[in-house]
């Protein structure tokens, strides 16, 4: 159906417009212009939630502070334990000072301290007491067995005269009280099966399952006792031979007269201190963890709420303005009395001002023409009246000029109202099924007659091109496209009118050779009363309404209007894309 097959090369640059490119937004949906694709769903790298959680890490210092505090507590407890042991040793020694019989009984001592220390058996306590031939001393020594520590009484040869107590104590395993409620059972489970193993990794756990072998020599031989036998209260701390526990011991000399006759050794593992420290640590950590957990959940919820509101505001604000910067709908101002609500309201206010301005701009032509029409009628009726009078011929010239000017003015006013009237027409336009190719061919035939000095090249697909729409509107749109092209085309160059189709849409494109569009103005071309290029002389009035009408008609058919420079910069293509979906329904 091409009337100018040789026109193909001329069309080539135009073909590279978004219509054929893969990333062109596909018009979808039947209502209104094709929605812009939402490419950047999430444009923030670090959301408010993540930021708040980051801030929350500051609170991780709290467990560290707690740990330091517990370590301090442990040091304090150790000092207390050492003092207690020293006190006990001193007290026992004080009771045994100057008691000569104690040392005289020693015919069959129990063995050296070194040997005895290794065999810790509570059952053998005070086994040697009976050997002492002094009920008073025996009573003192018997009383020692009530202690929680292990006490030795040795002579200068380090033979054990008496002993009491044991290093090992069966620790009561603290069973969490599990009352009936689900929550407390959950709490108990969390503490037993999650937290305790965790604490066990961090802290040394006291154990009664240690061995203290005498064979390891120097350690067991006792620095403490050497100090005590030298007459000095000595406190010693040593690990057991297997390293599983630490034993703290205090040794005090027993004086007989001016002579050190023996020593009292009181020793204890640090297990009690460790257990106490661990309990304090666990309690502190439980509280801190619970606070952190509740805090972070609350903050996360709060941050989610905030970011949801902000995102909703963003979506609404983006949806309110389309790609060409026109306001689509109103922004419902939030009633929230905080900053986000305030932001939403100020967005709403800005949008409504924008809407007012846009509608002012779009109706300005209509109102202006209405206002102009009355004074024009005054002038016209006056001139017409004058013309009806017998006037000398030389005056008739002026009447004729005035009438000519009035006719042009009337033409301008009529064209100004065209867009306004079109909007009314669109409101009640009826659609029908018709052959869009036939309309294009018919119109171009008309233009060839209407613009005899111009060359029109026509490219339409062969065969029928069914479309569901308003044919007279499509014709009006083509009128405007061609009027625009004729106005800016270089004299003698062809104007190419092309109808292209694919599965989903038609594209009517009119290309002319001439000055290119400035890049910055391309988006605004289709607004009311916006004219970008200087017309190439003469012709009708140029009000910047033609392409606005093109846009209105394209949008009425669910399509859109696009203006682009030819790739070689030697001209401009203005096109309207019309989705076919409507035709198929």
């Amino acid at each position, binding site marked *: 159906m091409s009337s100018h097959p040789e026109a193909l090369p001329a069309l080539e640059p135009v073909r590279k417009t978004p219509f054929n490119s893969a990333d062109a937004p596909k018009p979808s949906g039947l209502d209104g212009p094709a929605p812009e694709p939402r490419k950047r769903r999430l444009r923030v790298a670090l959301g408010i939630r993540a930021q708040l959680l980051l801030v929350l890490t500051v609170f991780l210092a709290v467990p560290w502070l707690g740990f330091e505090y517990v370590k301090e507590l442990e040091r304090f407890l150790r000092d207390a334990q050492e003092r207690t042991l020293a006190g006990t040793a001193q007290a026992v020694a004080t009771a045994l000072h100057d008691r000569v019989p104690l040392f005289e009984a020693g015919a069959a001592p129990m063995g050296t301290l070194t040997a005895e220390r290794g065999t810790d058996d509570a059952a053998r306590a005070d086994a040697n007491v009976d050997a002492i031939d002094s009920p008073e001393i025996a009573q003192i020594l018997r009383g020692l067995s009530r202690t929680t520590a292990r006490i030795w009484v040795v002579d200068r040869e380090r033979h054990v005269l008496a002993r009491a107590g044991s290093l090992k104590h069966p620790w009561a395993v603290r069973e969490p009280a599990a009352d009936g409620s689900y929550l407390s059972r959950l709490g108990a489970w969390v503490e037993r099966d999650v937290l305790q193993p965790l604490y066990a990794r961090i802290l040394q756990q006291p154990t009664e399952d240690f061995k203290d072998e005498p064979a390891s020599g120097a350690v067991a031989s006792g620095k403490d006792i050497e100090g005590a036998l030298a007459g000095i209260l000595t406190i010693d701390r040593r690990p057991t031979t297997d390293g599983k526990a630490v034993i703290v011991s205090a040794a005090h000399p027993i004086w007989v007269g001016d002579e050190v006759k023996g020593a009292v050794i009181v020793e204890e593992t640090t297990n009690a201190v460790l257990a106490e420290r661990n309990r304090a640590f666990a309690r502190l950590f439980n509280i801190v963890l619970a606070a952190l957990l509740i805090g972070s959940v609350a903050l996360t919820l709060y941050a989610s709420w905030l970011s949801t509101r902000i995102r909703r505001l963003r979506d609404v604000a983006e949806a309110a303005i389309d790609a060409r910067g026109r306001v689509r709908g109103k922004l419902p101002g939030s009633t929230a009395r905080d900053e986000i609500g305030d932001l939403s309201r100020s967005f709403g206010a800005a949008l409504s001002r924008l809407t007012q301005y846009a509608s002012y701009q779009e109706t300005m032509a209509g109102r202006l023409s209405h206002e102009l029409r009355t004074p024009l009628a005054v002038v*016209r009726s006056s001139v017409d009246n004058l013309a009806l009078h017998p006037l000398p011929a030389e005056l008739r010239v002026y009447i004729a000029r005035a009438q000519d000017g009035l006719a042009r003015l009337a033409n301008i006013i009529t064209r100004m109202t065209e867009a306004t009237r079109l909007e009314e027409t669109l409101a009640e336009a009826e659609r029908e099924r018709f052959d869009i190719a036939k309309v294009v061919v018919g119109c171009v035939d008309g233009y060839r007659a209407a613009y005899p000095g111009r060359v029109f090249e026509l490219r339409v697909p062969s065969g029928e091109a069914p479309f569901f729409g308003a044919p007279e509107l499509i014709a009006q749109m083509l009128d405007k496209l061609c009027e625009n092209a004729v106005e800016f085309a270089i004299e003698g160059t062809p104007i190419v009118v092309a109808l292209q189709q694919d599965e989903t849409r038609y594209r009517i494109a009119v290309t002319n050779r001439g000055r290119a569009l400035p890049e910055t103005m391309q988006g605004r071309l289709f607004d009311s009363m916006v004219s970008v290029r200087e017309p190439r002389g003469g012709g009708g009035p140029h009000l910047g309404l033609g392409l606005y009408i093109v846009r209105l008609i394209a949008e009425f058919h669910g399509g859109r209007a696009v203006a682009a420079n030819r790739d070689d910069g030697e001209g401009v293509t203005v096109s309207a894309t019309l989705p076919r979906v409507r035709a198929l329904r």
Partner: protein
Amino acid sequence: MSRRIAIVEDEPAIRENYADVLRRHGYEVAAYTRRTDALAAFRTRLPDLAIVDIGLGDDIDGGFALCRDLRALSASVPIIFLSARDSDFDIVAGLRLGADDYLTKDVSLPQLLARIAALFRRSELSASPPAAEEILERGRLALDLKRLTAHWAGMRVDLTLTEFWMVHALARFPGHVKDRDALMREAEIVVDDSTITSHVKRIRKKFLALDTGFDCIETVYGMGYRWNLAG
């Protein structure tokens, strides 16, 4: 006795200009500024023709109300709306209220005079029997050029003056395409293309109301309209 024309118009310059030209053409003119004044005068004495502006001062739709009142007083007095308003909505509303024609204020005085003369001719001759030589017959269409009335298959088609002239322009040479400028010239109006489109749509609707198979007015896209002889 000269014919009496009432002009209801709030803009004094326009009112006086129209009144002057009409007087010069032998009509008796009564000019009114407000709706109430005009209506009071109409109650006393009906004019032979009324030219009414829609917006009368603060009374923005005063012309419509006046037209309705005048129609209630007389079914036959020709009424012409002459307004700065040119929206389809106003045109349809005005014609529905019983006006015979709707003109925008950029009409020239000769065009206005031609219409007034035509309307007088139409109302004057509606009583007398039609003269055969003044009838243009195109198939089922019959146009009485004297009375400016149209019939389709014997039924009266209620066309306004503008519409009648357009139908006449099209039907005179069936098969010939009349572009919009030609239609405007024939109908003595100056309007834009989409108003012509609206007029043609209204004409089609009027014929379709009588005959659902009516398809004599064909749109020739890019050129204009053409009257096709049915069958």
